[in-house]
């Protein structure tokens, strides 16, 4: 292993390099661009033997990956925000075709108004497309999760595409030391893709096809069943990753100091690191608080979320995303999962860090205080100028 100082974006590029991807296709968009610039460099220098297809849109980028995967290639693309939204039809298509495309998503705000800051609304709007979705908090986790994503996506019991989502700038353009495993070790974890359900020149077969209501539901159910197998397969994949590389990121819903907690905050992505230090401070002050990170968002780790209700009476969910006319998207999921839990903690939805707002220790402390106060659970939009709730207030 080599310790390299890498941005989150370069961690994506190195992971794709180590995965020996065969076809890469992408279109430039801030803040994703340095991922594919680095990959283009790897291909140009011969370090990576892959076809790099430069396209005229994100829509075509994903189609290139789907068609290449249909012929059996291991494929990778990356995008952000508007680019992901332009892909939307093909995001569905990739999972319907059961092509194990892996995509790096640098989570960025959706316009208008234009904003390039971190915000999960882009990938949250793709949550019902049949992709596995990871949200990560460090550059090391970016690299490790991309490698795990390939293994998971191509697993014979899964065969679904996967997104590895990282926060714009907090990860994409911030450098950290990253342990980069050597190629031979990665090869032992991630062998070449098996040729299964792919087109073969000279053989009659149709991938895609069309059906009436009779077979259509069978196809959808098969994909749903594959998605339902992901948590178990992911556990195995992560255990093997840990065995080989000596590192784990805690599964689908890593928790922190939740034992005996009265209140638990559920976070995603980079705000988790900040929140962990605040939990330590509050615990030191005698407050019984804990933290859980939604690392895997699709499929949703429903059982793990229910276990959070063992002691906690209050659960807050911090979404770096919004929906209109409803609480935050992760809060909605957490509430639904808790409905069938033996205990029913009150769920409070916090919409925070929207459009790249910093989520500071001060703000996280404010979230816990709100959670612990006697206020009725509701949806809180934070950081609003007129309310005077400032990130650094």
């Amino acid at each position, binding site marked *: 292993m080599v310790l390299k100082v890498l941005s989150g974006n370069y961690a994506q590029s190195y992971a794709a390099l180590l995965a020996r991807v065969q076809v890469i*296709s992408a279109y430039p968009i801030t803040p994703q661009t340095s991922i594919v610039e680095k990959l283009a460099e790897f291909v140009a220098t011969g370090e990576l033997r892959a076809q790099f297809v430069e396209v005229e849109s994100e829509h075509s980028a994903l189609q290139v990956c789907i068609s290449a995967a249909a012929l059996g290639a291991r494929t990778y693309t990356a995008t952000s925000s508007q680019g992901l939204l332009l892909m939307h039809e093909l995001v569905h298509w990739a999972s319907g075709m059961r092509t194990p495309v892996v995509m790096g998503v640098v989570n960025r705000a959706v316009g208008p108004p234009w904003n390039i800051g971190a915000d999960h609304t882009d990938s949250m709007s793709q949550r019902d497309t049949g992709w596995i979705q990871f949200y990560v908090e460090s550059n090391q986790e970016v690299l490790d999760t991309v490698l795990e994503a390939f293994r998971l996506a191509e697993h014979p019991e899964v065969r679904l595409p996967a997104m590895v989502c990282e926060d714009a700038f907090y990860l994409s353009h911030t450098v950290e030391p990253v342990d980069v495993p050597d190629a031979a070790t990665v090869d032992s974890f991630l062998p070449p893709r098996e040729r299964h359900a792919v087109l073969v020149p000279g053989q009659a077969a149709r991938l895609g096809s069309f059906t009436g209501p009779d077979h259509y539901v069978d196809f959808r159910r098969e994909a749903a069943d594959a998605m339902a197998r992901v948590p178990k397969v992911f556990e195995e994949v992560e255990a093997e990753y840990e065995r080989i590389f000596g590192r784990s990121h805690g599964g689908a819903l890593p928790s922190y100091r939740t034992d005996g907690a009265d209140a638990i905050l559920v976070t995603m992505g980079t705000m988790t690191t900040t929140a962990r230090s605040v939990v330590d401070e509050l615990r030191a002050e005698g407050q019984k608080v804990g933290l859980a990170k939604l690392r895997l968002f699709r499929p949703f780790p429903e059982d793990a979320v229910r276990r959070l209700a063992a002691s906690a009476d209050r659960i807050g969910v911090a979404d770096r995303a919004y929906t209109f006319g409803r609480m935050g998207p992760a809060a909605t999921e957490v509430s639904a999962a808790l409905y069938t839990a033996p205990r029913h903690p009150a769920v409070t939805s916090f919409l925070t860090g929207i459009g790249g707002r910093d989520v500071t220790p001060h703000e996280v402390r404010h979230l816990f205080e709100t959670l612990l106060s006697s206020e009725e659970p509701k949806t809180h939009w934070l950081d609003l100028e007129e309310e005077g709730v400032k990130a650094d207030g």
Partner: protein
Amino acid sequence: MAKLTIPSQELMYAGHSACPGCGPALSMRLLLKGLGPRTIVSVPACCWTVVDTPYPTTALKVGFLDNPIEATGASLSGLRAAADALGMKDVNIVGFAGDGGTVDIGLQALSGMLERRTNAIYVMYDNEAYMNTGIQRSGATPWGAWTTTTPVSGGHHGKPEPKKDIMAIVLAHHPVYAATINPSFPEDFVRKVERARDLVGPRFFHALTPCPPGWKFDSAQTIALGRLATDTGLFPLYEVVDGQLHITRKTGELKPVAEYLAAQSRFRHLTPADIEQIQGQVRADWQRLLQREREDLSRPH
């Protein structure tokens, strides 16, 4: 007796679900005869999505990949990239897309595929409207034609705009090969496909494919109508190899376009003045084509 030049091998089953007299069905059959079995066809939403028959059957003896309507060009780039990455040799990567999926919604992906020099063959089968959805006008619908969205009533007189010139658009990208083909001339059709098959780089075909229900003519007349399209000069047959244009069918005097128009009810509302206007346009276009051919021949290359 003249030697038959069309391969006898059939790579399309008879049990497809096209309408009787379907030009696109005949074109697929001829295309695959020219290409041979080591072919992967990428097909967007179009008549052929349905003609190939529903899951779990297929009407082709080659690989068939479905792609969304606007993405055929990109699909070809992906297939070729994978074939190269996986070391697959001698495989024809072919798109087979309708006119709407090419000149309208698929134009961007087609342009991208041509610009990045994807080594693939793109075939646009042109039935001059969105036929699979029920005869709505496309950018390839000719001036004056009736469609369900260019009705003939209340002062409306069919499509008010002329047909988009896809060959000019494609040629502006300088493909290694581009040609017009017409299943009513199968020898010319297959010869061009075989020629394109053996070239490397982006290649494009514009196939005129009569549609009996959409054009409103007797399905027994598909071949005759297709021949009229070319022999009136409305759909001349030519190929452009490395920028050199060569007309592959010349019959001396062009037949009057009125013969072609009168055979289809989609044009039956046209007045003698309308027909004269179309005739004038066709004559001018034909002269321009002859002129281009002369210039290309006289240019050193």
